[in-house]
């Protein structure tokens, strides 16, 4: 499809010396410019899929398997072209760092892409500033706090601005205000540059703001759809070990108490407005 940046068909992967495939015959698309979220149990295969999309892992042998990114089919020959288009922020930021200082680290991807020195310095300074780490630009990444490491890891990817950014639980250790800020920053960069975000997360509030949610369970794709489609399916939520965002819980509990709330209410603001109307009418 022309307007999908990622097309995956019949993708499987089995780790060496293991009996069951970690990813089992998975097919999905990611629309260009979307924020797509991948959720599912611990060990369901999310990070494995991220590594497969970037060519760090190669799929199990199968003639039907296809990974296509921005129109290019992933194989050994195209791997480097693909890596140019895809940037991953790994689950553990320690696995990400290569530079001796924060600014070297953020510059690394740009150096690889032969960005001219002056331009590089400007970009590096800007992104470090945007993630709020200017004070630490000369620090060694491994001696930062957990949340500071995550900020630097994100800065490294934003500096490059690849067409597809994969975030593997990249904001799991940020304080609430910091998380909102960083997510807003990523959204802004996404909009400005037409990037696509593929975010792996256990944060159900983040997932509820996505354009598309993919639900993985024991290596297979259980469901995909808009947040409202996913969250209305209670048995799916249960079997995938997910949780409902707060406003869904409140909405469902009110309905159980006999207070009518329309199904199509799909965010907190709408719920507040609706309850306000209801309250006034009474």
């Amino acid at each position: 499809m022309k307007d999908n940046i990622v097309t995956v068909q019949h993708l499987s992967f089995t780790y060496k010396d293991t009996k069951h495939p970690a990813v089992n015959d998975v097919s999905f698309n990611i629309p260009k410019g979307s924020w797509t979220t991948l959720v599912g149990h611990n060990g369901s295969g999310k990070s494995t899929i991220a590594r497969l999309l970037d060519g760090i892992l190669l799929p199990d042998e199968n003639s039907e398997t296809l990974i296509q990114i921005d129109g290019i089919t992933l194989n050994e020959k195209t791997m480097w072209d693909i890596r140019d288009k895809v940037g991953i922020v790994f689950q553990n930021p320690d696995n990400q760092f290569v530079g001796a200082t924060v600014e070297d680290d953020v510059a690394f991807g740009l150096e690889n892409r032969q960005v001219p020195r002056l331009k590089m310095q400007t970009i590096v300074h800007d992104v470090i500033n945007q993630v709020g780490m200017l004070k630490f630009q000369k620090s060694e990444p491994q001696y930062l706090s957990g949340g500071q490491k995550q900020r630097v890891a994100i800065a490294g990817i934003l500096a490059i601005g690849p067409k597809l950014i994969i975030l593997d639980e990249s904001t799991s250790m940020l304080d609430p205000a910091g998380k909102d800020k960083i997510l807003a920053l990523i959204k802004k960069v996404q909009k400005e540059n037409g990037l696509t975000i593929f975010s792996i997360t256990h944060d159900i509030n983040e997932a509820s703001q996505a354009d598309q949610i993919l639900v993985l369970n024991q290596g297979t794709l259980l469901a995909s759809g808009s947040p409202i489609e996913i969250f209305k399916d209670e048995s799916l939520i249960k079997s995938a070990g997910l949780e409902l965002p707060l406003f869904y819980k409140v909405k469902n509990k009110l309905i159980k108490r006999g207070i009518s709330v329309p199904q199509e209410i799909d965010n907190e603001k709408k719920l507040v407005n609706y309850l306000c109307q209801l309250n006034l009418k009474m």
Partner: protein
Amino acid sequence: MSIKFKNVDYVYAPGTPFQTQGLSNISFEIKDGSFVAIAGHTGSGKSTLMQHFDGLLLPSKGSITIANQTITVDTPNKVLKEIRKKVGLVFQFPENQLFEETVLKDVMFGSLNFGFSEEKAKEQAIRWIEKVGLPEETMSKSPFELSGGQMRRVAIAGVMAYEPDILCLDEPAAGLDPEGQKQIFDIFKNYQKLGHTVILISHNMDDISKYADDMLVLEQGHMIKHASPKEVFSDADWVKKHYLDEPAPSKLARSLQKVGFHFSSMPLTVESLVEEISKELRAKGGN
């Protein structure tokens, strides 16, 4: 007995250009048997503080009384080992805690190190591996060939297995799926009910208000608040100013308040929020 910090300072890399004040003049006392949450913005000193509970870091200044011992800058290793038997710490990044060839060996390590018999250590390990929700077949795997959330569970099991009196948890829910988070917090809460002390670092205000009965808030190495979560969250402006957040139910309640709802007290849980909303709607005579 209680845990007491007295004028504790910690300085990273003293005398180098990278010298950083990790903690500044921290003093507090917490009761044994309580569930204490530590919160604060990124880099505020939470992990630094936590590593003082088991003597992984020694205070540059001041002293700590914990588990019938005193920790200062010159506490000898022998005493520290005694302390570590009673104070277990789950690190922020589980990878930094794992090193054995197999998950089973890794979870047994702490118990063996603190004098459990081989047999008892194995029994405890198997019990805790199951309790934290790890599939049985992971037992013989290398802890490095696991998913992020599975590694987290191994690290938690490894500390729970030797049943320390004081359990210190640095963002233990990060990387766990929602179901796993609930499961693991029930384990911690039960552990407290059995008479142990639980110290938790968390950015999740819902979890803090749900499980903790005492709370410390840090900012730039200083302790800026020591109070019950209820008290801390009752001041929304203060909470916001210090990069925290209200629990989600309180936030929703506040939005409703702005459009005319009345709450006798700010609900901290979903149940109390729903109760308050339906009370208000019913009071108006509807439905």
